[in-house]
């Protein structure tokens, strides 16, 4: 009960986002043919990290 749920959600999304960005930047680019040529790992990974940052900031401000 003494847990701000924004912290675990933020940390989880940040971890997942970072993994996706890492793979999207360093990994094989040929796999994005199926996602209409969009590097969806790097793109969506960045969105997740952004959302995570907002959640974590909000939790620090109380």
């Amino acid at each position, binding site marked *: *009960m*003494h*847990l701000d*749920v924004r912290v*675990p*959600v933020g*940390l*989880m*999304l940040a*971890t*997942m986002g970072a*993994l*996706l960005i890492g*793979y*999207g930047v360093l*990994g094989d680019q040929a*796999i*994005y043919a*199926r*996602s*209409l040529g*969009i590097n*969806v*790992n790097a793109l*969506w*990974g960045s969105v*997740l990290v952004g*959302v995570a940052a907002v959640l974590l900031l909000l939790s620090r401000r109380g």
Partner: protein
Amino acid sequence: MSLTWLDWLLMLVYFAFVLGVGVVLKRSTTTSAAFFQAGRAIPAWVCGLAFISANLGAQEIIGMAASGAKYGISTSHFYWVGAIPAMVFLGVFMMPFYYGSRARSVPEYLRLRFDEKTRGFNAISFALMTVFSSGISMYAMAKLLQILHIFDAPFAALGLGPHYIFHVCVVASALVVLVYVLLGGLSSAIYNEVLQFFLIVAGFMPLVYLGLRDAGGWSGITRAVPPPLTHAWRGFASASTSPMGVDAFGVAMGLGFVLSFGYWCTDFLVVQRAMAADSMAAARRTPLIAAVPKMLFPFLVIMPGLIALSVQGGVVPIKMYEGTSTMVLDALGKPQLDYDLTIPTLLLRYFPTGMLGLGLTALLASFMSGMAGNVTAFNTVWTYDIYQAYLRPQASDAHYLRIGRLATVFGIAASVLTAYVAAQFNNIMDVLQLVFAFVNAPLLATFLLGMFWRRATGHGAFTGLVAGTAAAALHHGLTLPVGAAAGVKGGWIATLAPYPSEMAQNFWTAIAAWTVCFVVTIAVSLVTAPRDDHELVGLVYALTEKPPDALLPWYKRPAVVGVAVLAATAALNLVFF
């Protein structure tokens, strides 16, 4: 398409976080109030997201996309007609009685308002129903992951045949939910439902984006599919032209009123989330906050169905007989489509490794949130409304906490067992679900009369419930959807009237049950002795002080938020009219 280390790692991250939340909450879960009611200390927005997430099981995600491919945007009736108005009613009118009375559960409210037998009837049927429905959704989920064939390679590498995928899916997901609910009780379930909510949105939003892009946007979809599929209300003037076989009145009355209010306003699975809120005002805001994402979910879960119809002349796979390559044909000899595979097919089509792991994790998360919802509702009703009420009334708090944990283990074990029974005997499960539908259909009348008519009596409520259940069974036994064989689908007494679709039959069964329960409850109440008014304070509308909404800022007043939510829903209906 096969999974890589990255997909597995993403799944692992998810498991680590849900279990971690349980571990962190273990320290504060030392009383039965903490375990069953989350100490009534959760902020409104957290309860609101949990409220919506507990309802968002994997079956809903798979089923709504399937229905989207079959009926098109009309499927949104299940949201814009069949959910939002009921959620607003719960928040504005009914929550004060659930939260304000001393009730710890929905059946307990029935005991305070009516009597012991009405509570017992509701508690026992609800407890059985949650266990069975969680087992059935577990079965559906495991079956789907097996059919997808993405786990075949890793299992083969371990020397295990494809049927082990079913066992591992059932056991692994059951164990994870078991551990985090045992550790942190309802708070753990609620916090994880919020986590799962974010994950579900994160997993499916890019799918809709890529799909829409591929289909040429909404205008591409409207060009590719027949017009009735992109209009929510076209053809609903009469049952014969409606894609669902129900006219607008049947939709509004059957789905919009009886079924939807019956579920959202009386089902403890969702109401429990609102009852965990930290104040009366927060409890009332819970379903209103939940209504905002709920209103937008059609874009996440129904749109994939339309996308699957639109790209490349349609990518919904043809239905095959299990384990063979023989196509299932309909009555006209045309191959049938396997609509349940809509979402999985799109996931495999658009997501590369990485996003695929996230999408599958989202599917797992939706499944677990639904299961944890069932389990936490079950352990509370079992402990408070069955064990404490009938088996051991005067035990210590620590004893009930222990019983609650045991009930969690038992509830999950029974669900797993149900999943295996479902795999063996599909028909038994269909019959059971039907029986529960009969029991549930009249409940709404009981609650409405209980909360808004002080003259309603316990004998009236109980007789009404039994009569309403009988009426549902009778109506089902005497009607049959066109093209169905008599039996589980109806007509097991005689077929007096055919319905154009199964959905039409469901809606009208519910309407019949509600009406009979409503009339019988009133009739019996009028000839039985009423309770004194002072006993009903806090339980009945006319005898309860209205919550001081005027002291809240306008954006926190339930009535104001409720009207705004309804207006937005009406606007969505007009846009897609």
